[in-house]
């Protein structure tokens, strides 16, 4: 890759927080570092991964609204977690979490358990309890 060819395809995926170091050759054939704001093919791959995540989140959101799943299911998906990972973060066993995904069981959860989930999801307990109010909030990721 030549220095002049280092891509600057900024699609906002770096959140303006950094530019990446790339290695490229200058006019005299020596390697130098050049900062890049992104590259279309890798942007496409990253967007694809998030589209996949967001699709699942939307599906679970619908099921929560239909009363088929509890808010725990929604936030688990939104945080790209599975039962195993959520169990490791909350310290709640997988089989108990599986029960808490059912709206009926969830509605009877004590505050201590709710607080564990809320802490892991980094949201207030109230938001976990009152799921509908939360729907207009923008998603955390692109």
């Amino acid at each position, binding site marked *: 890759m030549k220095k002049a060819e280092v891509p600057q395809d900024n699609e906002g995926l770096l959140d303006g927080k950094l530019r990446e170091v790339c290695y490229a050759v200058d006019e005299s054939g020596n390697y130098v570092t050049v900062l890049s704001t992104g590259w279309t093919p890798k942007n496409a*791959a990253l967007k694809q991964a998030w589209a996949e995540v967001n699709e699942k989140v939307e599906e679970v959101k619908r099921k929560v609204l239909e009363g088929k799943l509890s808010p725990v299911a929604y936030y688990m998906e939104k945080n790209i977690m599975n039962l195993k990972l959520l169990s490791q973060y909350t310290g709640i066993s997988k089989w108990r979490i599986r029960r808490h995904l059912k709206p009926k069981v969830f509605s009877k959860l004590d505050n201590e358990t709710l607080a564990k989930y809320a802490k892991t999801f980094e949201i207030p307990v109230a938001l976990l309890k009152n799921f509908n109010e939360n729907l207009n909030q923008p998603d955390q990721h692109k």
Partner: protein
Amino acid sequence: MIEKNKDIVIDFKHYQAAHCENGVSSNLLKHHNINLSEPMVFGIGSGLFFSYMPFIRLNNLPVSSFRPLPGMIFKRITRRLGVKIVRAKFTDPQKSMERLDSNLENGIPTGCLVGVYHLTYFPAPYRFHFNAHNLIVYGRENGSYLISDPVMETPVTLTREELMKVRFAKGTYPPKGRLYYIESISENHDLKSAIVQGIRHTCKDMLEIPIPLFGVKGIRYLANRMKRWPKKLGDKKASLYLGQVVRMLEEIGTGGAGFRFIYAAFLQESAKILNQDWLNEVSKEMTQAGDKWREFATISGRIIKDRAGKEESYEAAANLLLKVADMEEKIYRKLKKISLD
């Protein structure tokens, strides 16, 4: 007992790098007056690799990797330069923070393994549950820790809670508060022989592992599987599989083309140090291999976006990989013969 609120700032210089482990290693060595660039650290640490492991899953997709296991680069570079290091892992987060604090009290900048999901200063679209990120803690000021994260352009900070959280991220390969630092350096290390050792090791990894998933053979294996993806998996899944390969190839930290350009830079620098001009030629060939990897990424990007023309198929992408494998095999066969004179 350590005073938790006392400010400590170690005189530490932050240099941005492409890759976190290279950067941490290079910056820690520089702090001890061993001035090695990122490419030198990467090359001597034998950071170049390829593996395709369809049975290991990341986000439910098979893993291809362009680097050895986390920690290997630091381990190899320090061993080859006779640098003594200390590594520790913890079960108790408080103890791990106490150890970090006592290192700071003693003026030791300390490398930490962390997960990126909760890394607050990181770009949100890059925050997956990925647990092999490295950073250096070099001080504590106004209750926050001073962080030199090599992929960032400038130093950043994390609160105690935030730092503890990322050091004890959960999931695949949990970091368990792992920290590492340089204890002492050897004054008379032999850079030239370290370079030769590093290159030989890489050639061995890329040519001689007797399992078809690794090295040049691994690239061919991936290519041949890739040709069958659309039929076997259907369009959507095949495209996700391809996307994962591109993400691993170009994700933050590879410096472009799965580290191939960093390695070419290393060969160029080594040509001077060893006074062996033929390495410049091999460096150029490695640049060409890197460019070929990028051609592959370009085609793949269009397939992922569903904007591929007739010529841009899985078959075409896989054929580029087969070409890459041939180019790289030639390179490693040449490099394998390296010696000090």
